[in-house]
């Protein structure tokens, strides 16, 4: 520490005054000699710069003749000239593949991609917008190698899960840091529901948003993904999983114009893209006997659709509250009037969703100042009636050059977002659960088109109309009208920064940024809701505040003609506080009055979570002859969450970029003009969750996995229970070491490019709650343990097969293959639970891929053959025998991901389409399992047919031992309700037969856009007009027997690969018009 300070003092004291030089000239297009307006001219290694005027002319004052001027213009190769003359004019050549592409790197520092020794990849803001996704994170899907994005469903505002190069933490956060304009922002998926229920709230409830949704995609200039620890090393622990750097649009000066106004509007129409296949041949009931919804005594047999064939039934024509056409009787019955035809409750229910987007922006400026103001509104209604998501954003950004040495920048963005969300997943008020289980002989809508018509879901006596006679599950129309969830987020993101050039070679930079929001939610369950028949209301409030302060000093130096370098020394302070308040009122007295004052009992939970870190960091850069680049970083961090006295940790990184084509003199070679190799090593640490070093007591609340349970205070008595999680005063920081090698090769005059990366990262000493035997008195102990390895390759292929004056064809393809391997778990631990149910879950197991699907299996003999029951007295004669054990039954990690985008442009017309491929990766189709039990899955149409299950004959004797001759099975088993109500369906003890591969090929995006020639508007104030039409998810080819397999029950969490009555995904068209003034 002391040495560092001494060094900084030395650097500061060497500031000296020097003679200044004024240079002027013009910047022209090398092809036609025309002046380039708005090209940037700056002094290398400083922030001293200017822009050319309408004729391409510039004037700049530099320190002395040793200064080097850099000339840049988008789409052109940049050029450098020493300021040895008072008049310097240059002509720039167009650049095919932007070899000197400038990318944003850690801390928001812009650097030439050429200089980097690690992989980064950028996505233009336009590509995020054209994805048609409301959520900017979802808009990154299928655009970057090494990045996997999984949207949890097509519900408005649903979260998207993003991870880079797999998951490295066994149970902790695996999503990358999201940074907007250099300031880290929160991308959490805040949960809803009683916090005592923990992760179980994710199995049910509503699809919440990840907070990245608060960013307006239209404000994004560019997104850069820092994939490995070497790239994000300067961010320290927050970016242990990589970083996504979002740069927002800034104002720019258009010569001769004070302000540029841009207005864009679009309308998208969405439909469900894939329905769940259901049977429509058999009526409600069991064993071929019809059990109607309005049966005098409720029966569990109303739940299933193993009744008679529908074509043997008729209506008696006497209308009642349950059946518009009268009760259902046998077609042979004397009262029979009209034939019964099956209802398609599923397709009848969903509507066309609409998304309106309106964006207005104003920008302008001059050489020294610029501003941009934008206002946007998104109004989305979902395919589920009454569901919606709205977002309004306002953003103001500006940059000012106060003097030649001093520049400031600031930005503030306000977002209001939220909507009305619908109950989903595993709960008796879940929409899809009630919808898909409904028998085809019952019309949930009661013939109403209006989704709010009460005759669909409320009977005259106020109880619920549903296919189970008021029991079972909510009628979906009840769910959308009687169980609304609304959320309202108010958020401010902002920063201000100052950059001061103390001398030509020394810059001081300071930036402070905040992310502050409140997220208020309310959920109501009306009286007679199936989950909470007495009714419930809860209000919850998150108050989030995050502050990030960065200070750094950069010294640059040209050692000699070929060698230059820089040294950055900095400090970071990060502080976060989350206040959470949950209030739940149970048991309404006055029907229809959803207010806390109407509740018979009220419980409240409150938490405050604090965390603070401080860090010092350094970055040394050396460049030799513009082809060899060495980067070294070091960071030391102190975290409040680690044990006092042992809370400091250090981690270094090194990377090397070697443009080998330069020393080989290939740059003029037509076939192979450019080749670069990258090598990097990095080590990164991570801290613990807040309050992990001690064990505490918490207010008692008691459940049993089946019921809502008890919550203290009870009868005025409070109670506290010892925490299930034991704290650990001996925690150490986590550590991840990584290596990365890569190559960036360009061929045929840069028309073809291949970027290849191999990486391997090993995470050890992970901090996690290690499950322990409950007989020790708790359920887990926070420990350092486990080892996870990620290795893989990423390939980015770019090509421009056609390029003429008017016509251009570009191709970009990304390929991602990651091996996410859990090498070891804490000693003595066989699995670590990540999420799911007690029967089927997602767990980490040692020596296996990350996040395995775990569930009940069929019994297998020593040769791995399934054992088929051959005891004729067994009810399972001819059927596979359950093992009674839970084992790994699926791997949700894809074998590889690939995508391919083609873009054709002809003058102002552009046509682009993006195909997305996914190979492998399992999903537990719990929806199909449950629907098989209920006789609603399409596969139960085979009832009554016979099947010889593949396997060997055998049985289990009274002592539990397998007795098998090993003979192949030849017993014909008759499929039907006996089997489906048992282990053949989803409520038996076996889950393995509902695990399916989620391969897909999809046409994710297709866009046709036209920008009208500006010559059309010469006499009008209009500067430009563009129109476009896009399709999203229009084609999907998958073998998955359910909704679109891009889905996850619990949303953006580590446990991926579960589908249990998830909301469907959507496809749609959008139309947009943009006009510039």
């Amino acid at each position, binding site marked *: 520490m002391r040495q560092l300070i001494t060094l900084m003092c030395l650097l500061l004291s060497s500031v000296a005054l020097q003679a200044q030089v004024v240079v002027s000239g013009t910047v022209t297009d090398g092809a036609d000699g025309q002046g380039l307006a708005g090209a940037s001219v700056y002094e290398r290694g400083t922030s001293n710069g200017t822009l050319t005027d309408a004729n391409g002319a510039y004037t700049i004052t530099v320190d002395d003749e040793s200064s080097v001027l850099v000339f840049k213009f988008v789409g052109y190769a940049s050029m450098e000239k020493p300021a040895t003359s008072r008049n310097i004019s240059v002509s720039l050549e167009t650049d095919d593949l932007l070899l000197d592409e400038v990318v944003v790197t850690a801390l928001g520092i812009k650097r030439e991609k050429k200089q980097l020794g690690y992989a980064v990849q950028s996505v233009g803001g336009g590509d995020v917008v054209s994805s048609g996704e409301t959520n900017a994170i979802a808009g990154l899907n299928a655009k970057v190698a090494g990045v996997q994005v999984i949207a949890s469903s097509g519900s408005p505002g649903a979260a998207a899960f993003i991870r880079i190069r797999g998951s490295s933490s066994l149970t902790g956060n695996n999503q990358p840091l999201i940074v907007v304009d250099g300031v880290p922002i929160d991308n959490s998926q805040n949960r809803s529901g009683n916090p005592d229920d923990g992760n179980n709230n994710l199995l049910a409830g509503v699809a919440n948003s990840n907070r990245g949704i608060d960013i307006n995609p239209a404000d994004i200039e560019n997104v850069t993904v820092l994939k490995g620890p070497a790239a994000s090393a300067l961010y320290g622990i927050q970016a242990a999983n990589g970083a996504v750097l979002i740069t927002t649009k800034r104002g720019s000066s258009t010569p001769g114009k004070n302000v540029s106004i841009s207005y864009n509007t679009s309308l998208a129409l969405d439909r469900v893209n894939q329905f769940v296949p259901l049977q429509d041949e058999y009526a409600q009931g069991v064993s071929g006997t019809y059990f109607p919804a309005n049966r005098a005594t409720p029966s569990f047999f109303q739940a299933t659709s193993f009744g008679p064939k529908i074509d043997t039934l008729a209506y008696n024509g006497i209308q009642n509250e349950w059946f518009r056409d009268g009760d259902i009787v046998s077609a042979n019955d004397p009262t029979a009037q009209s034939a019964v035809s099956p209802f398609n409750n599923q397709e009848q229910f969903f509507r066309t969703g609409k998304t309106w987007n309106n964006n207005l922006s104003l920008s302008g400026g001059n050489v020294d100042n610029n501003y941009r103001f934008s206002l946007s509104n998104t109004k989305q209604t979902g395919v589920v009636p009454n569901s919606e998501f709205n977002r309004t954003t306002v953003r103001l950004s500006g940059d000012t050059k106060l003097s030649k040495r001093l520049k400031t920048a600031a930005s503030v963005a306000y977002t209001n977002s939220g909507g009305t969300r619908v109950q989903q997943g595993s709960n008796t008020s879940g929409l899809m659960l009630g919808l898909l289980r409904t028998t085809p002989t019952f019309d949930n809508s009661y013939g109403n088109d209006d989704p709010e018509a009460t005759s669909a879901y409320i009977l005259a006596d106020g109880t619920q109309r549903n296919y189970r006679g008021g029991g079972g599950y909510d009628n979906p129309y009840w769910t959308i009208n009687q169980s609304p969830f609304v959320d309202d987020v108010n958020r401010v993101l902002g920063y201000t920064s100052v950059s001061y050039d103390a001398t030509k070679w020394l810059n001081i930079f300071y930036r402070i940024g905040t992310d502050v929001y409140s997220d208020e939610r309310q959920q109501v369950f009306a009286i007679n809701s199936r989950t909470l028949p007495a009714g419930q209301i809860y209000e919850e409030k998150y108050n989030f505040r995050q502050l990030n302060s960065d200070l750094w000093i950069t010294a640059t130096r040209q050692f000699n003609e070929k060698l230059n370098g820089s040294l950055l020394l900095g400090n970071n302070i990060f502080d976060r506080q989350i206040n959470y308040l949950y209030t739940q009122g*149970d048991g309404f007295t006055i029907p229809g009055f959803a207010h806390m004052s109407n509740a018979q009992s009220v419980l409240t939970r409150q938490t405050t979570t604090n965390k603070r870190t401080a860090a010092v960091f350094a970055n040394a850069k050396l460049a030799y002859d513009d082809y060899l680049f060495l980067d070294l970083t070091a960071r030391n961090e102190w975290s409040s969450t680690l044990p006092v006295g042992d809370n400091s940790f250090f981690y270094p990184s090194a990377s090397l970029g070697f443009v080998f084509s330069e020393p080989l003199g290939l740059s003029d070679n037509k076939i192979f003009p450019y080749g670069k190799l990258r090598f990097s090593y990095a080590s990164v640490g991570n801290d613990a969750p807040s309050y992990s070093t001690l064990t*505490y007591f918490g207010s008692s609340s*008691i459940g*049993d996995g089946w019921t809502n349970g*008890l919550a203290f205070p009870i009868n005025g008595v409070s109670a506290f229970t010892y925490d299930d999680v*034991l704290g650990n005063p001996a925690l150490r920081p986590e550590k991840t070491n990584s290596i990365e090698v890569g190559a960036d090769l360009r061929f045929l005059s840069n028309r073809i490019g291949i970027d290849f990366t191999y990486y391997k990262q090993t995470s050890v000493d992970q901090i996690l709650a290690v499950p322990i*035997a409950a*007989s020790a008195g708790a359920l887990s102990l926070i420990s350092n343990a486990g080892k996870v390895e990620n290795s893989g390759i990423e390939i980015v292929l770019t090509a421009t097969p056609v390029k003429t004056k008017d016509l251009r064809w570009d191709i970009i393809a990304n390929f991602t293959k990651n091996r996410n391997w859990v090498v070891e778990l804490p000693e003595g631990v066989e699995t670590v639970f990540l999420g799911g149910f*007690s029967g089927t879950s997602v767990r980490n197991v040692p020596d296996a891929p990350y996040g395995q699907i775990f569930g009940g299996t069929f019994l297998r003999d020593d040769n791995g053959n399934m054992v088929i029951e051959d005891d004729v007295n067994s009810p399972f004669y001819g059927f596979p025998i359950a093992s009674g054990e839970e084992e790994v039954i699926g791997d949700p990690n894809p074998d590889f991901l690939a995508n391919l985008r083609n873009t054709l442009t002809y003058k102002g017309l552009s046509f682009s389409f993006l195909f997305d491929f996914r190979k492998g990766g399992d999903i537990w189709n719990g929806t199909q399992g449950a629907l098989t039990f209920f006789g609603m899955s399409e596969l139960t149409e085979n009832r009554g047919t016979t099947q010889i299950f593949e396997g060997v004959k055998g049985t289990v004797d009274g002592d539990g031992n397998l007795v098998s001759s090993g003979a192949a099975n030849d017993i014909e088993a008759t499929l039907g309700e006996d089997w489906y109500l048992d*282990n053949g369906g989803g409520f038996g003890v076996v889950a393995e037969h509902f695990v399916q591969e989620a391969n897909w090929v999809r046409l994710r995006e297709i866009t046709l856009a036209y920008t009208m020639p500006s010559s059309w508007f010469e006499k009008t104030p209009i500067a430009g007009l563009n129109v476009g039409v896009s399709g999203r998810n229009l084609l999907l080819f998958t073998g998955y027997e359910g909704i679109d397999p891009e889905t996850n029950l619990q949303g953006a969490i580590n446990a991926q690969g579960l589908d249990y009555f998830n909301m469907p995904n959507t496809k749609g068209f959008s139309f947009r018009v943009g006009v510039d003034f």
Partner: protein
Amino acid sequence: MKTMNNIKKLPLMLMLGVAFLFTSCEKGLLEGVNDNPNQPEEVSSGLLLPSGQAYLAYGIGGDISRYTSMLTQQVVGTGRQWATYQRYQITETETDNWWRFNHYGGALMDLHLMINQAEAVGDNQYAGIGKILMAYGIMVVSDLVGDVPYSQAFQGAENLTPGYDTQAELYPQLVGLLTEGITNINDAAGPNTPGADDLIYGGTIASWEAFGNVLLARSYIHLGNVDAANYTNALNTLDNNPVFTSNADDAEYVFGAATTEAAPWSQFNGQRGDISFISDASQSIEVTMYDTLLALGDPRWAVYYDTAAVSMGAYFGASTSSFVFASYAEQKFIEAEAAFQSGNTTRAQTAFEDGVRASLEKYGVFDQTYFDAATDPNTTLTLDRIMFQKWLASFTNPESFTDWRRTGSPALTPVAGNVTNNTIPRRLPYPLTERLYNGANRPSDNSILSRVWWDQ
């Protein structure tokens, strides 16, 4: 207050940040940030006692009661998972939630900590009540599964893989624990004493003493098959100590009307509804106890079962129902069984009659005609008659499953469609997590058809 302090510190923090390179300041910036404002590090015994009691009542009166009532044919699983359990497909997943959240990780750990801290400050009544409830909890779990961790349990990070005590080792320890508990509650009261925080007896110490003695008698009767001397031990316990004298003394946890206080059966029936109570041939639902009570004209039929509502009777199915840890009726049936096995049929007959009467009166349905027929002194008294009436009196109480295994009464026929070669399960499985995280200690045999030590 903490929050305010942090906010006030912000400007200071920023200044420190700017000045960082010129001073050495990382110390102090993080101080106190990791102090947990949400949860206490220590709580009083009066906060742990209700937690332990509610965990026991909700877990044993809920999840465990559902399994044991189903196995002793008082109810029938018909929906979803419960249709599978009904066929005796009960796996290690099924006991996991109860074992972890309610029992070892819930009630027993809270009671363990309460006993320790009460002993440390001389709160003898809390210590005594804690020991009685701990003995109750350990006996319940051992009767259900067999050998269980006790003497090495509850050590937290000190021992993450507690060894198992065999059931043969456990029972003497339980007797010791109960005896100690009864002694403690009669010792000097100590600085803190239970009152409203005691959700079972409201701090009435005499009731705890009686409850402790009934549990002692229960522990002896469980081992009757192991050593006949235990019948004498049971009778001696009942004769020489304060015990229950009427139904009013029953150890009960009464649940509340509020949604967050409601009884587990009422919650399960309302929120899940996968268990049926009423026999219905049209749906192949056969509830042995329902049919038996109906055939006998037993007035408890209408108490246990609500035929009109096709549901559980309100006495047991209401949100305000109670869970009975031990009852006067049970005490009388223990006395009848012990006396009968000791050859004192006269005493057995009297206790038998008292037990039947207590049960009928408990539900307010005493009927002389039925009583006379059920307890007819002219019919030879048999163990079967005693245990049959005890079964009828113990609706939804897990003790039924233990009694049936010990005595084979009543004779139950395995359910149709069972997957166990026509054998009724004789224990519940150890939970998944004990195999995963304490596999070396957990007995390897986890078949639900295997018998616990006293069930030989």
